């Protein structure tokens, strides 16, 4: 283990464990008002009339007419209204906000408002969608010839469902005007995203907006773009009230109406000749919901991962993100990759079964290695440690022997084991880092020789405060306690980009390391010094061209192999998880405890996605699973045997050899789990989540 990997007490441990940490709902300001949103109850309708009751003194309503700037939330394409205009496009779309001093009274007023809708026919099913928000395709090799010359052609379709981030702290924002400026604080991943959105909605100058991140109770992507929407709504209210306004979502409101993982349908057509896979023709469909939010980038990542970790010479990938009258979907840890990795891993498994070979054997034959081309004709520039990871997981889980033993079982309890192989592209997709983000990070040395990290990246639980400070302290050769970091405040920190895409540590941590090297050289004890570093793309990168969908989508990749073992009770259709193993290469861990925590937490979220986290809407477009009673996430008793190991594979261009980490562990759990269930029951499965109800269905079909 490298010295930097040795674990340190986390910077935020003390305030969090003692209950002293203040999250947004813990802040109370003088004269503060409370707001709650009135939301559409129809999936698609024209707003004919809104009839308000008499409002008591001190209470008022905020809507589209109060937006002094542009009534659009700046995200990517800026189509999400701050408040609804003439139509509503999904159940839950915010129409107006009621604001006042007492929440009970705010709720009474909300219930007394009558909205007259002229209903229109909604489109709920993504297969029936008429509007294609985003459409990409790319290809390589000669796909027509490959299919013409194939011995066998396999066609299968895979479906994945919603996944709700289910961070323990719901969304919340406080906005308050003062001295001609607007300050917004709250639970968020990306202060500068919120900053840009507020300036556009209020129609004010950038310098008139200040955004401060409060201690944030989990994000997982759910606090990437969504806080920009809520912040605009609250800032408009605060501007109208000329007082602080706080909005904290209820759990049901948060589950039902905030962005979640895109449901998907992927169809794979695969050519096989002489037992080898020669071509893949892949069509991917993502349900974007009513507005575009982050769908273009989510779809891009999903498509780049569509052929998995396999060398496919002849490849065609087509993808669409379509509009439906459902809640807009968005960022969630993995960002499009868990959907297509599930599909490609299951496809490989099913082809192997049809060819009479074990799934792992087929996968091993086509795994990429260093120097191979990526799906988008970029290059795997660095060592690909998959063979040693497979060997290690086999050792840990006794995968090959169990896999064979578990075939053709009879009796009530049937065991199964499955395995998945996957990567996560580190950092922003394509040229976003170079062309859009252009990250800047700073170190400020104070006169007392303490050093402060100035970056806009947020610690949302993943330990970034600690790892940033460790890098700076070690590079400078000063004690960890001498390096300070606060929650980002846009008045104080430069825009080092959002806290997304497993980029913060690798990219911004790299800038901080460079800044620390320079500061060390220029160090003048007792003086104030500020060092700034800007992002420069590494020169080995083959530039990505989005139009052609070609080049290095990522500079490097984090790698993983998962195995999951289950026992299915065919009487009750329940599945017990006997073990879950994951080997992860995230480069050099900057803190081993933190990385283990990320891997274990991510793997368990992935198992939830695969096995129990079921969310769907009814024929009115209303989400049915909107509470922890109906949307089940794993508890401490669900996967008692969860084992994670770290493989040290330094990345030459990351700080201390670190790569992206946060998203990787979620990406491959689902196919490993479903392969295990297939192994136990000798069936083919094409969907996640695969719940006890699904098991029941499969068992009934097998009996007929």
């Amino acid at each position, binding site marked *: 283990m490298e010295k930097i990997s040795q*674990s340190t*007490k*986390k910077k*935020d*441990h003390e*305030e*969090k*464990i*003692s*209950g*002293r*940490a*203040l*999250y947004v*709902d*813990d802040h*109370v300001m003088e004269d503060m008002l409370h707001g709650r949103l009135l939301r559409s109850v129809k999936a698609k309708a024209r707003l004919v009339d809104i009839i308000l009751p008499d409002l008591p003194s001190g209470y008022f309503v905020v809507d589209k007419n109060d937006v002094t700037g542009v009534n659009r939330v700046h995200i990517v394409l800026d189509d999400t209204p701050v408040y609804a205009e003439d139509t509503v496009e999904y159940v839950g779309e915010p129409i107006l906000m009621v604001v006042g001093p007492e929440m009970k009274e705010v709720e009474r007023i909300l219930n007394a408002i009558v909205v007259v809708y002229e209903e229109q026919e909604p489109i709920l099913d993504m297969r029936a969608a008429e509007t294609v928000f985003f459409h990409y395709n790319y290809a390589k090799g000669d796909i027509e010839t490959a299919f013409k010359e194939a011995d066998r052609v396999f066609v299968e379709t895979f479906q994945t469902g919603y996944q709700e*981030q*289910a*961070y*323990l*702290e*719901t969304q919340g924002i406080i906005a308050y005007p003062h001295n001609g400026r607007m300050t917004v604080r709250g639970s968020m991943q990306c202060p500068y995203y919120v900053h840009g959105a507020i300036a556009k909605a209020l129609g004010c100058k950038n310098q008139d907006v200040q955004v401060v991140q409060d*201690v*944030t*109770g*989990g*994000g*997982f992507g759910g606090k990437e773009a969504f806080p920009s929407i809520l912040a605009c709504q609250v800032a408009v209210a605060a501007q109208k009230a000329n007082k602080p306004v706080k909005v904290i979502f*209820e*759990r049901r409101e948060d589950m039902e109406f905030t962005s979640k993982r895109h449901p998907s349908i992927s169809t794979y057509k695969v050519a096989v000749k002489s037992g080898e896979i020669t071509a893949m023709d892949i069509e991917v469909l993502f349900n974007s919901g009513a507005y575009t939010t982050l769908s273009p980038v989510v779809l891009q990542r999903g498509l780049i991962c569509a052929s998995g970790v396999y060398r496919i010479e002849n490849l065609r990938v087509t993808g669409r993100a379509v509009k439906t009258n459902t809640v807009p979907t968005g960022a969630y840890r993995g960002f499009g990759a868990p959907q297509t990795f599930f599909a490609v891993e299951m496809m490989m498994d099913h082809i192997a079964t049809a060819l009479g070979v074990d799934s792992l054997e087929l996968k091993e034959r086509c795994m990429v290695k260093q120097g191979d081309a990526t799906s988008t004709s970029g290059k795997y520039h660095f060592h690909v440690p998959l063979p040693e990871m497979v060997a290690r997981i086999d050792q840990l889980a006794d995968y090959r022997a169990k896999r064979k033993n578990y075939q053709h079982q009879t009796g009530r309890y049937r065991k199964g084991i499955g395995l998945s192989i996957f990567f996560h592209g580190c950092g922003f997709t394509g040229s976003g880092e170079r062309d859009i983000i252009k990250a800047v990070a700073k170190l400020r040395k104070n006169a007392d020789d303490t050093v402060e990290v100035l970056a806009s990246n947020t610690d*949302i*639980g*993943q*330990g970034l405060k600690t790892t940033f400070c460790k890098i700076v302290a070690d590079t400078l050769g000063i004690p960890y306690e001498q390096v300070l970091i606060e929650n980002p405040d846009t008045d104080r920190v430069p825009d080092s980009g959002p806290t997304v895409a497993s980029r913060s540590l690798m990219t911004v941590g790299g800038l901080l390391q460079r800044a620390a090297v320079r500061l060390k050289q220029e160090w003048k004890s007792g003086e104030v010094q500020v060092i700034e570093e800007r992002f420069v793309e590494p020169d080995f990168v083959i530039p990505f061209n989005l139009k052609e969908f070609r080049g290095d989508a990522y500079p490097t990749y984090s790698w993983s192999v998962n195995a999951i073992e289950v026992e299915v009770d065919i009487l009750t259709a329940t599945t017990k998880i006997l073990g879950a193993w994951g080997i992860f290469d995230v480069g050099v861990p900057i*803190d081993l*405890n*933190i990385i*283990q*925590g990320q*891997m*274990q*937490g*991510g*793997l*368990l*979220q992935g198992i939830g996605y695969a096995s129990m986290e079921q969310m769907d809407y009814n024929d009115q477009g209303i989400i049915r699973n909107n*509470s*922890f*009673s109906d949307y089940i*996430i794993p*508890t*401490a*008793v669900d*996967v*008692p045997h*969860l084992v994670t190991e770290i493989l040290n594979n330094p990345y030459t261009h990351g700080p201390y050899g670190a790569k992206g980490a946060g998203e990787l562990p979620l990406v491959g759990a689902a196919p490993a789990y479903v392969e295990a269930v297939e192994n136990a029951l000798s069936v083919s499965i094409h969907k996640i989540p695969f719940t006890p109800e699904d098991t029941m269905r499969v068992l009934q079909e097998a009996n007929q």
Partner: protein
Amino acid sequence: MMIEFTLNGQTVESAAKANTRLLDVLRHEFPLTGVKCGCKEGECGACSVILDGKLVNSCMIALGFVAGGNITTIEGYRETERFAVLDKAYAAVSAVQCGFCIPGMILASECILAKNPNPSEGEIRDGISGNLCRCTGYNAIVEAIHIAAREGKGLW
């Protein structure tokens, strides 16, 4: 009518209605913001407090029910020697990520150890199964409670 109870060792009273959620009374009236609100329906455990030696979801308890009772929240518990042991144990394995479940999780840890100073892994997992954590995958928290059991000899 005033409702009297013991809160973190002090006798206190509240004028709130007897059917008010204990969670709201603790957060807004006293104001003990270490008690977190995650769902208000008894599912997540973020608002856990110890009532007469038992771990309860304060969102599911009406104020009237605690009349004469003894409540400990993280604000009281953090002053104890037992907390110091748990604090150190949680820090050693970096079991705190976003932190939102942690005040409840610490009080759940206390209840596990109070019941059995040498709990098995199964007892630990059962004891925190009413406290959801979305960050850690629970391993580090389970390990921290094991460490506290080992290091806190005689305290429980």
